Every structure is written in C-alpha cells, then in structure tokens.
C-alpha cells in the first residue's frame, strides 16, 4: 500500500547508501583481507575461540533489555496517565541525566558500588551485612557488587532505560481511550484490557524500545570494562581491542563485527516479523 509521500524515502535511501552502506562495504573488504592486502578467510576461521564472548554479550544484552522493558513499560504507562504538565517535565527529566558525560556517570556508579561504596555502607549501617553473616555463617565485610556481570547489566540498564521508556510512552499516549472503554463495557477485567488491548497496541513502541536498548547493548564496550572489571570481556571490548589494542588488527576486528552484525540483523528481522504479524492480527 504505497501512498503519495513515498518519494520522501528517496533522499534518505541515497544518504544511507553513502554514509551507511559504503563504510560497511569498506569494513566488509577489511574483514576478508589480511594486513598485506591479500584476500583471506582466516579472519573468520578462528572465530570459534570467541564463542564465549559472543554468548556472554548476547546474554547480558538480552538480560539488560528485559530489565529495561520490565521497568520501562510500567513507568511509561504511568507517565502517560499523568497530567500534561507532569508528562512534559517527566519526559525531559528522564533524558537529562544522559546529557552528563557517560564516563562521569559510570565513575559515579563505581563509587556507589565499590566495596566501601555508598551501597555497602548503607547495607552495613542498616545491619544487612551482619544479618547475612549470621544467617549464612559467613564472614564478609561487604557484598561484591562492582566488577561483576550484574554491575554490567546495571550499567546497560542505566544507560539505555530512557531509550525504552520514551518510544513506549509516546505510543501509549496515542492509544484511543474509547477502545479501552469498549473493552471494559464488553466485560473485560483490567488484566484482560491490558493483555488484549493495550499491550498489542503498544507493541510498535515496545519493538522500537527493544531495538534501541538491545542493539547498542550488544556492542557496548566501556561499561563492561569499567563496571565489569575487565574480566568479563564483551564483543565491544573484543572489537575495540583489535583496533585500539597493542596488536592492531583491524581486519580481525572487522570480521568479528561483521559476524556480530549478521547475528543482530537476524535477531531483529525475526523480532520485527513476529511484531508486525502480531499487530496485524490485532487490527483484524
């Protein structure tokens, strides 16, 4: 179903061809050549060694996306139910922290999570740590929060949560109230209204949010290094290491990122397919 504004996509397509496709092609060429400029497949051969890193990255990114969705959806929903003034302020306030520098924010989180950090001090003063010690019979002075996979997930959730909230919020805002009323009038309880009407109709926003959280999470690098303590290497670190590490092997880096990209694209296509199908089913 084409309509009269489809020509607007033409300039964008040209732009993408230049600034997205050409650089990707350059990288693709890199991934199949060696430092001497010869065509080779060896960059892909050793990829199996990094399977652990691939699995870890995707696993942590999925976890972070789920947490974001679980927190972000209700927040977006509640926000959309508030008054206009509240909404305007809330929307800006959700984005504002992200305008402070990323490294500064992450350092802040580090001092919150450190062994003698704010959280552990809080736990100590409310007696949580001694309670834990008496229950389990252990003898710890602090909980190891920083430099764990959990801290990495927290960092990703912190950084990308707004990206989940905003698109969901802007979709829920647009929901037709008469649909909800109709469902209620037809006898649906509030759980069913949510499950059968609100949730399917807000799916486009959820899909956008999931994309914007999941996709950058997979390739994130500094978060895992700083909050994960560098012992939980992720794809972003692995790739960065090829470009900015001592060995300087952009060919291998390009190959890893090509493989990563293919996997992400497959994930996205599957998800979008599923999403669009769902939406149409509801519309019918």
């Amino acid at each position: 179903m084409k309509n009269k504004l489809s020509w607007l996509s033409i300039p964008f397509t040209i732009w993408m061809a230049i600034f997205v496709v050409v650089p990707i092609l350059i990288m693709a060429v890199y991934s199949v050549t060696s430092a001497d400029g010869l065509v080779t497949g060896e960059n892909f051969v050793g990829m199996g060694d990094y399977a652990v890193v691939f699995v870890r990255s995707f696993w942590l990114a999925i976890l972070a996306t789920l947490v974001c969705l679980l927190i972000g959806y209700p927040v977006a929903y509640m926000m959309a139910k508030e008054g206009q003034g509240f909404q305007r302020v809330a929307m800006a306030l959700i984005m504002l922290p992200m305008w402070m520098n990323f490294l500064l924010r992450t350092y802040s989180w580090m001092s919150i999570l450190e062994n003698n950090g704010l959280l552990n001090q809080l736990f100590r003063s409310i007696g949580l740590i001694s309670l834990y010690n008496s229950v389990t019979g252990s003898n710890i002075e602090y909980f190891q929060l920083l430099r764990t996979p959990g801290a990495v997930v927290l960092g990703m959730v912190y950084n990308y949560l707004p990206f989940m909230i905003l698109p969901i919020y802007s979709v829920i805002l647009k929901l037709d109230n008469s649909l909800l009323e109709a469902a209620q009038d037809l006898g649906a309880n509030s759980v069913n209204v949510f499950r059968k009407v609100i949730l399917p109709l807000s799916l486009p926003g959820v899909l956008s949010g999931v994309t914007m959280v999941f996709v950058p999470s997979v390739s994130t690098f500094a978060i895992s290094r700083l909050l994960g303590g560098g012992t939980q290497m992720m794809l972003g670190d692995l790739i960065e290491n090829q470009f900015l590490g001592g060995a300087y092997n952009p060919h291998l880096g390009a190959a890893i990122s090509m493989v990563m990209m293919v996997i992400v694209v497959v994930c996205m296509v599957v998800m979008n397919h599923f999403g669009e199908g769902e939406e149409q089913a509801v519309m019918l």
Partner: protein
Amino acid sequence: MKKNGRLGGRLLIGLCFLFLYLPIFLLIIFSFNAGNSSAVWQGFSLKWYGDLLENRLIMEAVATTLLVSLLATAISTVAGTFAAIGLYSLGRRRREVLLTVNNIPMMNADIVTGVSMCLFFVAFFGLWGGFAEWFNAQQSFLELPTRLTMGMGTLLLAHIAFDIPYVILNVGPRLRQMDKNLVDAAMDLGCTWMQAFWKVILPEIKPGIVSGALIAFTMSVDDFVISYFTAGSSTQTLAMAIYGMTKKRVTPVVNAVSTILFLVVLAVLVINNVREARLERQRELIAAGQPVRQSPIVEKVSQTLSSPKGKYIRWGGAFAATAVFLVTVISLTAFTSSQPVVNVCSWGEYIDTDLIDQFEEETGIRVNYQTTDSNETLYSLLKSGGADYDVVVPSDYMISQLLEEDMLEELDYDNIPNFDLIDDRFKYLPYDPENKYTVPYTWGTVGIIYNSTMVDEEIDSWSCLYDDKYAGKVLLIGNSRDAFGIALKYLGYSMNTTDENEIREAYELVADANRRGVFQGKVMDEVFQTMEGGNAAIATYYAGDYLTMLENNEDLAFAWPKEGTNWFVDAMCVLKDAPHKEEAEAWINFIASTDANLANMDFIWYASPNKEALEMYPEWYEEQYDEPLDEEIYNIIAAPQEVLDRCEMYVCLPPETRALYNELWVQLGI
C-alpha cells in the same frame, strides 16, 4: 482503587528517577570537592569552577560539543522525520529492508563505525583532490581547494549519520499507529504535501519527534569514539577531551562543567514549563469563553506574526538566524586558518594549560591541542589517516614502532636550542639511537601502590600481586603490555622478551592468579578512585600518580619491587609530512625550556628530562608553595639512578609477539 493505582504509579516513577539521578547527584557533589578525588571528600570548595574558567581547552570543547550536537540534532530530526514518513509510505517489504539498513549504524560497534567513516572520508578526500586538480587545470575562474581535511564538517556529518536511525525509530511507531488514508484524503482534498505534513501528520507524530530529538542529542553529546576518528586534528568535543583524560585521570573540572550544563538545562526546562502551563491556562480560558489578558506587546507581536505580512517576518527571521549561524561557523574556520597553527596531540591532563596561552602570546602561533587516551589509540588514528597532527607525544616503544613504519620526520635541532638542556641520560635512548627524531617530554616509573591498613608486611616484590593472601583485593593493570611485562620481570625474564615460552609462562602466572580470584579486576584510571576509597589493597601504577592518590588517602604507600620494573620516556616527535613543521619545532623548543618543564612537572608530577628543571624543582616548589618539598616525594617522582638501573624500558615488540600478547590478553578476559 483508582487513587491507589495513581499513587503506586507516582511511587514507581519516583523510584525510577531516584535510580536515574543518584549518580548525577554524586557527580554534582564532587564538583564542589576541595580535593581532586571523585571518591574521597575533602571539604567544600569552588576551586574547580575557578579552574574551569581558566581552562581554555575545556571551554572550547564545550562550545564545539554544543554546536555540533545541536546542529546534528536539528538536522537529523528534520531529515529523520521526513525519511520516516517516506519509509512508512512504502510497501512493507521495501520498508523492512530499508529499516534494517537504518539500524546498522546503531548495531555497529562505535569503533567500527568510526574507523569505517574515517576510511571513507579519507578515500573521498583522495578522489576530490584528483578531481580538483583536474578541474583547476581545465579553467581559471574557480580555484577549488585540492587538500580537504577532516574537521567540523566531517564531525557533523558523522553525528548526523548516527543520529538519524534513532529519530526514525522514535517517529516510526507513531506513524504506524496513524491511519495512512488520512494523508491521502488530505492530499485528494487539495492539500500540498507540505500542508498535509503540517496539518495532518505533524500533530499525530509530535511526541515521537520530540523523543527522537532528545535521544539524538543524547547520542551526539555522549559519543567520543566516532568523533575521534572523524574530527580531524583541530576539533575536539567535550566527550573526546574527557576520554583523553583517562590515560591519567579525569579532573573534577569536568564535574564542574557538567554541573553547570545540567543546571542551565534544568533552568530552561523550568522556564519552558511555566510558560507552557501559562499558555495552557489561557487556552482553557478561551475555551471557557473568558477574555484573555495578554500584554500589549505580546499581542502586537503575535498579531504581526500571524498576519499575512507575518509570513515574510517569519521567513526573514529564519533566514537571519541561518545566516548568523553560517557566518559564525565560517568565521570560526577562517579564524583558525588565517593564523599560523600547530596541531598537537598529547594525553589528557598532561600539560599545564597556561603554557599553551603563554606560547600563543609569545609566538602568535595558534595551538590546536587534542588529547587521546593511549599510545594505541593514537597509532590507530594515525594509521586510518584520520588526523594530520604536527606534534605527537608517544611513549618510547610506540616511537620505535612509528619509526619502523617511517611515520616520523627528522627534526632540525637548530630550531630547538633547548634540546641542550635535556639531561644526557635521556638522549640517544634505544628508541631513537641517533636522536634525530625526538625531544623527551617526561619520564617516570611503574611501581606498587598499596594500602598500609590492609597490608601488614613490607612490600618489596611483585609476588604480592599473585598472592592468595590478598584474594579479591589486587587490581591488575589494564593493558597487556604492563600486566604481562610485570609477570615476566617477576619470573626473572626481560620485559621485552620475544621467547614464546617465557611469555606463556608469564601468562600462566597471571591466569592462574586470575582463576584463584586474586584480582578484583583490571583497571586503568579507575585505579585512582578505587585505591583512594580504600576498596583494594594493592595496585600497580605510575609513581607520579601515586602522589595524586596520596593526597586523598594518607594510608597509601609506594614501593619499587626488587625484581625491577618498567621506566618510560614520553617524547615529542613530528609526524612525517607535517603541514606545520616550523611551528611544531617552535612548540617543541618552548616545551623543552626549563620554565615549561618546571610548570609541567608540578602539574603532572612526572619527572622532567630537563636537567636544570629536575634539579631546581625542590627549590622552585618551596618558592611557589612556601613549604619545602618532602625529599621522599621528590625521590618518588624522580626515581634515583640506582632504581633506574634495575628498570627496563619497553622496546617495540615484533608483530608476532604483539599478536601473541593480544591473543593471551583476550584469553584472560574470556
């Protein structure tokens, strides 16, 4: 019931805000810290705000950041919105394909996007150069510039390129919700496409546009990797400057500037909200049929604007704003190009910035000062052709690597008379045996920093790094060369060995300790806050940086292990075919002077290679601060010769060995 739900909702939103703002509050609090730590509170002070005003590098970076981010946001929001409308008017299959391509910049690791953009621009500049030469030879009316360089323009293009996908992803869902027939109906009824856009589409998708713009701005402000590779040598954003500081430490000046920006944005929000609320009340009044009170001026203005004549005024205003903006941008570039310039790339927090002003005043040469975070980043930047710096300040082993690849220019030492002031110990070093390319900048040593309240023995050996006694309390230095180099030294081998078995043995030592849980983590500059806050017992880092930590935590102690350690020299070099070689030599000469060395030594707390400055420093310190310099501290900064005799300097390893290091390092992280 309903009331309860609302309360619950507010509580949830409140918690979410607490989560979002907790680190921000901490960051703001530490901008008022009297000390330079971001972990230890030393009392209230406005010191960093004062420093900020004098810090030209950061102020310029803020201006660049705002300019680039705002422009990129504005352009990508408009472009992205129209693109989204176009995409959602297409059939589903084509749309899905295009949307997938749209997501690529988002899913690519930043470094890959950055490097590929850089290669792309370099390739384009090459083609352009050929074209311009041909074109100039054909005719004589128009002289095209043949040599394009990266700068604000390429930076902006890159930012727009990675912002657009986010805008599309935000506008998209709203478009999907919209009935497509509305647009067709409007246009069938005689609307132009512009009218259809303003009257039908825009009101429907406005929230999506707003959130898209917000996210685009966020991405722009935060990005540093892509910016590094597309900004060229004379443009630096705040995020780049901050990341460049991570070779040493991020100064609280950055907290101060962030706090100010935060408060300004907050103020704008409040004002905007009050204004909107007032407008809303007026709308309600209108709806209620009550006369609206408006100040006569506002009424007049709004009348003129909405009258037919107002159209010209609106267009005129927009045109004037654009013109002013363009003139500013152009004059900014023109200003930098009409003056003699030198492009310097160094490490963050590695110079007393007063020196830059002083040099500019004395010579009239403008200094474009950029920073990166490591030798390897610098190398990668140079390799991709992303930057045409004149002066760089790499470390010893990187200098030999650059020399091996013929990337450095011979210096004309007649232009650098201050080279004579350099101590003979720091001339003719292995990385530059004939001393034709380099002038030393600083030198220093690596040692063990430990918390004396957590360690009850005398530390004099690297063995403590691998000791179960300190399980979970040791910080491993976060780069392969240092981590394995130290292990090699402990095992009694050379830090520069190329023997695979020795290196593997060193790896086993580190990996085994890692398996036993001795290491809390790998750290680079985070070592400052972790050690200052008393969160780890033992770390390895640079002697000069130990002194910074000592200021914030008196329990910290320092030791050079008996097995010996690494000592380094960072030296200034000029890159091959540097466009401003004479200016570069003037800069090098200036920095090599005794005064500059004293100022730098005092600022960085790394030792000076200038003989006079090194000897004079305690005296100079007493004059400056009215208190004598502790001899022990002086000895830690400037390691005595008997310590240096035990130390080894890194040399450039052959590619196979570097690859082995990298492979083992990755294995350690898996």
